[in-house]
């Protein structure tokens, strides 16, 4: 296998909103290469999110202080106040920059603001478009490598020196020298369950925790990995998993197995997203769920909102036309966001010199629960910061032995023999996490999941792609993703085991109450003998 060598100042891994914004800001003063595992402008969660997708305190009723308070409150006290302060203060500038890049938000004639749950004032605006950010990055001279997947970060003397990558289109292996690297790889939602074509998540298939795994391997610390946010979505028929979500406004449609619309009389302000999920899981536990383990949902309640919500919910109208309004469908929570991620400072730098992280790949901004629409803002604010600071990094010397070693690993996966195809390992892992590591966690279930993860990790050694083609061999990508997902899953499950309380999105059956002694974060890093977990860490220190 031939190694193609590239040289750059800043290497951005990930082509969503955070990666694009980072590349734009770095490109003003540095040479930038951006890797996207799929198509730049259309990949990741940012690639599928018009609608009300960003929050900033632009209203006269609002202030950065208020945005800060709302975000801290929603995080159940776990977010890093220094980062949240930056988020609140830089949101307006970062969001309006989208308009300078070409986005145009709904006007009447001032920007129309929407108030998602948890915000004390209307603060959400949109739509912003990923492809406008990706075009701006191209205009700034960023070299974009599409369908190219980073496989490993190279570190010498505690400093990143570059990364290796494979080109999906021609199977080529690349070593990219870089003075700094930014992980903008998004979350790891794909570890949660499997439907018929993807995980039980509305997020796209590429969110496999690549940044968490690569950052961890490179020595970076991670935080809050036990906090995984969910929202309700269709679960049956299975082809609609992740296709659309069910907002609290549709609560009237839920039916228990006695035929009772039991949430009909509860007024909307009393129902938050988390409460609705709790209510529904409770019903299912009581044995009043639907035939496939969810809850019945009368989609007739969609009808009056289809036209009205056309732009607030992405593709709402068209999807419901396909799904068929008026039918009784089954609903269950899906996973849609990782609050946790790589620990960063105010410059978005990690504890590894020259390694930065931003967007969903980074942790510490949302604590135990994220406020709706804060995510895109997070990507824009911290993406810009990561780009600005990454451009100032000094380089180190790349260790070629590491490149050779990684090349051998990839070659091993390609040429390896064994009984499992990558998709089989992947789905085994996904099903195991879904069954015992997703909702209503407890000690027994989590321990079982952990044992299962280790077993699947062993089986992964017997994993190999069925095809040897070099052209668009997606199985090779799936295989590498499997390792990343295994690592991400272990972090999630072990952190969840450690946190013996319920807080935000992390709900334990055996510890149902929030414990004030647990108002601290769990830190994870790679020790000499595997993963190290440290509890009782405070982010504001």
């Amino acid at each position, binding site marked *: 296998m031939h190694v193609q060598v590239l040289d750059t100042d800043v290497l951005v891994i990930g082509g969503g909103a955070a990666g694009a914004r980072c590349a734009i800001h770095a490109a003003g003063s540095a040479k930038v290469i951006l890797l996207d595992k*799929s*198509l730049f*402008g*259309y*990949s990741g969660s940012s*690639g*599928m*999110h*018009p609608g009300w997708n960003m929050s900033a305190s*632009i209203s006269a009723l609002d202030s950065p202080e208020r945005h800060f308070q709302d975000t801290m409150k929603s995080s159940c006290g776990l977010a890093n106040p220094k980062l949240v302060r930056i988020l609140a203060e830089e949101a307006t500038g970062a969001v*309006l920059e989208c*308009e*300078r*890049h*070409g986005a*145009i*938000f*709904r*006007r009447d*004639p*001032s*920007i129309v603001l929407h108030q998602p749950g948890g915000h004390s004032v209307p603060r959400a605006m949109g739509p912003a478009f990923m*492809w*406008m950010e990706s*075009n*701006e990055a*191209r*205009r700034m001279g960023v070299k974009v490598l*599409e369908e190219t997947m980073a496989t490993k970060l190279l570190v010498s003397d505690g400093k990143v020196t570059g990364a290796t990558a494979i080109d999906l*289109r021609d199977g080529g292996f690349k070593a990219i020298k870089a003075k700094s690297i930014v992980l903008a790889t998004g979350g790891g939602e794909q570890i949660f369950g499997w439907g*018929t*074509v993807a995980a039980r998540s*509305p*997020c*796209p*298939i590429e969110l496999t925790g690549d940044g968490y795994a690569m950052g961890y391997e490179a020595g970076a610390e991670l935080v809050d990995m036990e906090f995984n946010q969910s929202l309700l979505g269709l679960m049956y*028929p299975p*082809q609609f*998993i*992740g*296709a*659309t979500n069910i907002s609290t406004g549709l609560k009237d449609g839920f039916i228990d197995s006695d035929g009772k619309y039991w949430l009909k009389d509860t007024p909307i302000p009393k129902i938050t997203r988390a409460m609705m999920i709790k209510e529904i899981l409770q019903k299912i536990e009581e044995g009043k769920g639907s035939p496939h383990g969810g809850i019945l949902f009368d989609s007739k309640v969609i009808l009056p909102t289809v036209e009205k919500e056309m*732009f607030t919910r*992405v*593709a709402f109208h*068209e*999807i419901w036309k*396909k799904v068929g309004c008026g039918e009784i469908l089954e609903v269950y929570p899906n996973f849609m966001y990782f609050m946790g991620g790589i620990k960063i400072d105010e410059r978005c730098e990690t504890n590894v010199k020259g390694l930065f992280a931003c967007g969903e790949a980074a942790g510490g901004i949302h604590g135990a629960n994220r406020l709706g629409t804060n995510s895109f803002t997070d990507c824009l604010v911290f993406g810009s910061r990561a780009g600005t600071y990454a451009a100032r990094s000094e380089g180190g010397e790349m260790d070629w032995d590491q490149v050779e070693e990684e090349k051998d690993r990839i070659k091993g996966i390609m040429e390896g023999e064994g009984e499992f*195809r990558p*998709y089989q390992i992947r789905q085994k892992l996904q099903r195991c996490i879904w069954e015992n590591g997703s909702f209503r966690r407890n000690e027994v279930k989590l321990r079982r999941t952990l044992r299962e993860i280790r077993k699947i990790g062993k089986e992964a050694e017997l994993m190999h*792609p*069925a*095809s040897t*083609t*070099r*052209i*668009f*061999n*997606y*199985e090779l990508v799936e295989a590498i993703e499997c390792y990343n997902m295994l690592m991400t899953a272990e972090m999630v499950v072990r952190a969840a085991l450690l946190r013996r309380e319920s807080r935000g999105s992390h709900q334990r059956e055996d510890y149902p109450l929030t414990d004030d002694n647990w108002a601290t974060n769990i830190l994870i890093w790679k020790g000499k003998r595997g993963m190290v977990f440290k509890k009782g860490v405070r982010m504001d220190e």
Partner: protein
Amino acid sequence: MDEVKAKIFRYDPSQDREPRYEAYSIPWRDRTTLLEVLRYVYEHYEPIAFRYGCRSMLCGRCGVELNGKPVLACMTFVEPGDIEVEPLRGFPIIRDLVIDRTKAELRSFEGSPQLLRAKPPEEEPEKLPSQAVSRCMDLLKCRTCYLCQAACPMVEAAQDNTVGPAIMSRNIALRAYDPRDEGDRLTEAIDEGLWYCSNCANCKEVCPREIDIPAIVIEDLRAMAVERGLTNPAHKRFASSIKENHNPYREAHEDRLRWADGLNVSNEAETMFFVGCTSAYRRQEIAKSTVKILREADVEFGIPKDERCCGSPILRAGYRDLAKEMVEHGAQALKEAGAKRVICSCAGCYKTLKLEWPKLVGELPFEVIHMSQYLVDLVRNGKIALREVKGKVTYHDPCHLGRHCGVYDEPREVLKSIPGIEFVEMNPNRENSLCCGAGGGVEAALPDTAIKTAISALEKVRETRAKLLVSTYPFCKTNFLDAIAESGEKLEVCDLTELIVKSMRS
């Protein structure tokens, strides 16, 4: 158990000399999606290459062709039985169903889809008129899936002369409507092929977000261009002819009814025949056939005394003020003639009267019917006797009658009711039928492109082995005849009314 039998396009340039098709069986259940079919093949047979991501029509990455129609695999349901899956046409192929979008993306990028303005606004956020913004919102529904690009007949026929519907819409029109943009987007639109659209509406047909590209992109941009004086010379010629002579063909208005000399047609009746310029001046055989049929069926009918252009060509070309004059006159004339129903044998007139006149002059006091629909009634009620005509016949759905107005069944029913006719469908047909390339002012402005498009549509006729091609739009007939003259294809073309007359006589 029900099964889907999928024939899938396979091509690995590193291993295969040429593309091939492989067949796979996949278990079917209610609303199986095409993406599930592909994933099933990937897991249970062999790792075919295809792209996808969000599974909810948002990321636009899973575009493929299902039985020749561009679709998003994620939310397209398949029925049990045979299906064929191919990559989107018009793009280089990376492997199997994965296309290379780079060229389209870079072309889009070169045209600067970004906002062009010299300096940022003094105050941010700036106030903007909500109407202009919501016009942009309609275009921002686009998910850049490029299905329209694959569906557009002009992308293939005109090659690099047009950027195609996706980029024309998402980049150029978006910025042309953006109140903040300072770029000369209309000149850009023209340079990038604004005149190449034949108004076939196939883009709209395949768009997962149901964006009406022909209307809110092409016609709106053309109207803006006309307002700015950036006219196409050929369009300007026919527009000025319509202004002076009330027809696009530079013919004298007083000759309009010359074809009906000696026919003693009344000018007032409850049933009015709206002849249309093409039948009046260029395809008089269709006008005459229509009259013969109506006479044979003893229909009391009239032809407007002072009929003028229905407005179709000038609406397509963006001359909205002039069109409004024509429409006002036309509606008034038909009203004065006492019309309760108006029959058009021209699909272009039919679409314009039916869909666009009410928008310009309000609700019409009469019903608008296409001749093929009227023929169904005449045949069903035994008003005309059809005798045997032998031959293998296929039918071309004119875009204006089919995709624009949804009339597909009536012409087929009429054709099938003629004894002796062996009717064969072209593939693709109905909603997906190929445009002849003449509409939207293309025939006038870019005759070579129109003929080239018709020649590729004729390939589909050849595949049916039909000897006769029937249409219901005089303009399609003309263009097909021109294409046959050019290509030497051995094929007859006629209008549905002509075939009916033949059948009445034999």
